[in-house]
């Protein structure tokens, strides 16, 4: 059996990749995918800890996270489509009409 520590380390690596992706990438879709990666890193950690503690709380939390992430996708993609309609372009660097 794979030790639990490995799952936790993997989840930490995934979380870091996700966080870096949000900070580095310039396409909102990719940023969005990176955010999903962060959430799923959390899910992985939850499931792993859940088996350590022999408790279902963590697994239930995972369902909530999945459901809420789906709701977020609905709003996020709608926003991105809407922006593409007005600007014909979704690059984050071009979203600079607000500054000061």
């Amino acid at each position, binding site marked *: 059996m794979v030790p*639990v520590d490995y799952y*936790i380390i993997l*989840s930490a690596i995934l*979380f870091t990749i*996700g*966080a870096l992706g*949000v900070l580095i990438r310039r396409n*909102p879709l990719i*940023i*969005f995918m990176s*955010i999903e990666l*962060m*959430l799923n*890193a*959390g*899910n992985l*950690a*939850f499931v*792993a*800890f*859940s088996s*350590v*503690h022999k*408790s279902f*709380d*963590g697994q*239930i*939390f995972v369902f*909530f*996270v999945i459901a*809420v992430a789906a*709701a*977020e996708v609905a*709003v*996020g993609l709608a*926003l*991105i489509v*809407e*922006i593409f309609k*007005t*600007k014909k372009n979704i690059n984050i660097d071009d*979203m600079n*009409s*607000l*500054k*000061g």
Partner: protein
Amino acid sequence: MMQPEYKDYYTLLPLIILIVWACLLLLADLFIPKSRKSLTAFLSALGLAVTLGFTISQIGRESTGFNDMVVLDGFSTFVNVLLLVSGLLGIALAYGYVKRMGLERGEYYTLLLFSVSGMMLMAQADDLIIVFLALELLSIPLYVLAAFKRKQESEEAGIKYFLLGAFATGFVVYGTALVFGATGTTSLSGISAFVSNGTSSPSTGSGGTLLLTIGAALLLVGFGFKVAAVPFHMWTPDVYQGAPTAVTAFMSSGAKIAGFAALFRVFATAFPALSADMADVIWALAALTMIVGNVVAISQSNIKRMLAYSSIAHAGYILMAFVPYGNKDVMSISIAAGLFYLVAYVITNFGTWAVVIFLEKAEGKDLEISDYAGLAKKYPALAAAMAVFMLSFIGFPPTLGMVGKFYLFRAAIAGGYNGLAIIGVVTSLVSAYYYLRVVVNMYMREGDPTIEREPWLSFTTAITAIATVVLSFVPQWLFLLASTAVFRQF
């Protein structure tokens, strides 16, 4: 399988009413013709008022519900009343504004109700699962509202708020996972019981404390985004500027109250044992937030951006009072001071945004500070109200902001953080520069501003201006109320 009992429903009664009302309103709105959308506004305000009535009827009650997932106590009641009043003021500001700007769609008010219900759930959450759900329930409608104008800058505000809000959610989820890993529970009381027993979990061994500390720090990052604390404030100026002004007014009050409610409850009930490590982190956050917020605000020429930085700075003052949260003697006065300041901030904030909405024209015209020149000569009452709000933001007597700051500084000094209090006083002095610039523009420069007359806007401005001044003469009464807003004891 446990069946929900009367007690469970009673704990969440106001929230349930509000959510059911919002769902029904969403349906009812389909049958309201486009030309009569003001009916939706009145119905949603009625829903908030009914909920407010039930919340007030719960004053002094304490209970828990749904397996201790949610809690009803003095703190939650106090915060809920404040949130519902913000919701009502938010509708009053939006009523004329959305008509004038061509944004009048029924969803506006329903989304606002859903957001308020998320904020109320946040105040009542007693489990990290509920904190997470509440955070999303309050944020997702706000993302939509920020992009409501469907013009370039509004959409940009929406996507920026969305991406950074979702980013913060990632931190909250991962932080909760680590806290769960360290303690084996997500219940706030369970976590604090686990920590005070001093036992570390058998599998994680001595690494348990480390996991818990990292988890708490990640949660702090998540809440830091919500209350716009430096260095998690990057989204604030852009979102506040791009979003429709009525949305900004509601968002800057409501989301901040909810964020601080979660921060207070989670840290004061679950992590008091970590205060030795966390106090330094919060100290640094508070100091940075006060300094950056106030200093950057000086160079802003757009009033919405200036107010965005000012809202960042005010988050710093509240954080300052929260630094000594681990100290049992100071904790209650520091939370009472934080709540008092939130009341002062919300009243002043809504008034200020009401004045901004008075002047704003379509296409974002008349939002520069220089556009306020000559306001005092033409509309003396409006200028006087704005001057009161600016003085309250600075913390100048006789306004509620001055009393609020006094309590915050007292809490910081009682906790032994004199250095932080000095930073607070100095940055308040700095803030006088940019707030007074608005006053100088109104009273000493020549100009010909025009305003949009609208009864609900005048009503909001008048009532907040009067409250800002009058309440400052009877602060003990409000502070006493805030002091009774304590957490339920386990």
